[in-house]
């Protein structure tokens, strides 16, 4: 596996204006994504987890510029995507494809599977009609369907098969990066594992890079090399998946992991129950946005927003509990000198 970053995101923000009154004046902003930075290496899978409203899907959409970022840079394969013209961006999407959550809503019910799969090739002006047809059949087989399925319509397939078609469509243009937004959350457990295995096989076969956005922590651990945890528009922790699950640092990650029901009645764990709900993103708490629910709240947390700082190698966390430690280390160092 190479370790060249394929995608680098810096200071990405998306503020949705809140409009009020007949004149539609902007009275405030919902900070859906607020200063998010990360990178994805070639051939790896980056998982992004978080609860509803944390900004994980908005982030995914901004990477493809399906939503225009308010601020920030998205560097893909050496190009800054945010500065591309619409036409240039359209061409670049050949290399970045998306798989969506709802396999019922993301396939046009009036088109045959052949037409659905052929469309990305037509849009990007790839291949001639005969080659396209051949490719459709080839990819149907690759995702575990059969060539004769090409003449059918989406309603003739089950949820799992539709998700396979969604994945085949994303693969048609030979992309480098696939952004999968909750690709298995609408599927039953037994089908979910089939689709996850398929995605892993395809990654090996085509050397794909995945950004895997999901709320299911078990699924994310299974598929990801590295994981970022989001809360209220910010990444609060980022680490190798092994490390994150073995030793979560941020109090939110700890609570989130402890809340997941484990399919083993003998397994007794200490559950950290969070009080209350996720605050309104239009009016987020001051300082650290998690301080309203945090069991380790300190005075500094209500005032200063913690930055995402590398704590161990490759393990970053945005929490004052650890930044203090860093400060102390520095003081100690200074003292010893």
């Amino acid at each position, binding site marked *: 596996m190479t370790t060249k970053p394929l995608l680098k995101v810096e200071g990405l923000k998306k503020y949705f204006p809140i409009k009020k009154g007949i004149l539609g004046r902007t009275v405030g902003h919902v900070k859906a994504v607020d200063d998010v930075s990360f990178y994805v290496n070639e051939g790896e899978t980056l998982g992004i987890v978080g*609860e*509803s409203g944390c900004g994980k899907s908005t982030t995914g959409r901004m990477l493809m510029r399906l939503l225009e970022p308010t601020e920030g840079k998205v560097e893909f394969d050496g190009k800054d995507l945010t500065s591309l013209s619409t036409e240039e961006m359209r061409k670049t999407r050949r290399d970045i494809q998306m798989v969506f959550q709802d396999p019922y809503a993301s396939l046009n019910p009036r088109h045959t599977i052949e037409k659905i799969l052929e469309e990305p090739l037509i849009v990007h002006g790839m291949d001639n009609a005969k080659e396209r047809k051949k490719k459709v059949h080839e990819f149907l087989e690759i995702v575990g369907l059969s060539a004769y399925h090409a003449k059918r319509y989406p309603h003739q397939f*089950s949820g*799992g*098969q539709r998700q396979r078609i969604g994945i085949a469509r994303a693969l048609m243009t030979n992309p480098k990066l696939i952004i999968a937004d909750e690709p298995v959350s609408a599927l*039953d*457990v*037994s*089908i*979910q*594992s*089939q689709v*996850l*295995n398929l995605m*892993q096989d395809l990654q090996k076969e085509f050397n794909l890079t995945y950004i895997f956005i999901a*709320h*299911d*922590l*078990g*699924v994310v*651990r*299974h598929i990801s090399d590295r994981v970022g945890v989001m809360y209220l528009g910010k990444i609060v922790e980022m680490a190798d*998946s*092994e490390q994150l*699950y073995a030793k979560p640092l941020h109090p939110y990650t700890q*609570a*989130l*992991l*402890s*809340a*997941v*029901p*484990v*399919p*083993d*009645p*003998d*397994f007794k764990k200490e*559950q950290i*129950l*969070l009080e209350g*709900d*996720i605050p309104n993103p239009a009016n987020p708490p001051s300082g650290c946005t998690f301080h309203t629910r945090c069991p380790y709240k300190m005075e500094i947390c209500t005032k200063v927003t913690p930055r995402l700082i590398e704590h161990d190698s490759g393990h970053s966390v945005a929490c004052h509990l650890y930044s203090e430690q860093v400060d102390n280390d520095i003081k100690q160092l200074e003292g010893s000198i």
Partner: protein
Amino acid sequence: MDERKTVLQVKDLQTTFFTDSGEIPAVDHIDFHLREGEILGIVGESGCGKSVTSLSIMGLVPKPPGKVVGGNILFGDKDLLTLNEKQMRRIRGNDIAMIFQEPMTSLNPLFSIGNQMTEAVRIHEKGWSKKKAEGKAIEMLKLVGLPRAEEMMRDYPHQLSGGMRQRVMIAMALVCDPKVLIADEPTTALDVTIQAQILKLMRELNTRLNTAVLLITHDLGVVAETCERVIVMYAGQIIEEAPVKMIFDDPQHPYTKGLIQSVPDMRFKKDRLYSIPGSVPKPGSIQHGCRFAARCEFAFDRCLTENPELYETSDVHQTRCFLYDREGVEQHDNKALIES
């Protein structure tokens, strides 16, 4: 053996949907019982008939196209299937209450929480004054752990978060101290941290009020953490029933085994997930043989022709699989012998 009294007994229940494309047996001859103060889980994938089972108990199967075509549902000395709508309404809420997956669609957006709560109280406690009913409503909201219950009485459903709405639904369901609470995917629409809160609440209320809970879910983690006993359903049938520990430690039916292995476990990473090949058959499409046979790695001749019954493998464990029928084991072993 469990000494507790049975509060609800379902016998040979059959619920069929009569559609243009034919009769669909959504629930096909199922039997189970629920004991006092117990949490019983029904787990299965979409279309296995778990929700239709709960709707059949409540008399809420959409009619037409659905109809309960056979069986008995015994609650106390009454058979719920013989009651008329008026008698049934007296049972619902008073004796058996239900909460649903989506708390937003179950609450009326046009009325305040207080209004809907007091209505629920006064339907069941005839002759109570408005004041008294309000008092009871506030008490229930406090019971389910809602802060500032008095103020919340004036709020409308849209002002509450998903978790709070589900708490309101639970409060409303428990207003009349029902003996049985049916919870149909109560935490599926909620985030994990909120789900943990609601499951804890349900366990606490179960011990405190001794309400029997029938928990319907697709999530094996939720089952492991909440239930005492589990029923696994597949294609309209019960395929396995056992205490929760046994289901996870010693799953017997190949489907249950496969299902448990398919779930990615957060505690350790597997290189590859187990997956059951194929997909759930359309209800009614399999006429002969075991419904799981086409996806089963252990299937042999008998599985394709005969429908297995529920074999008792211990006092408390039942499995619908020929591998647990003495005759079946012999046949299967013989076949394996010949093949080898």
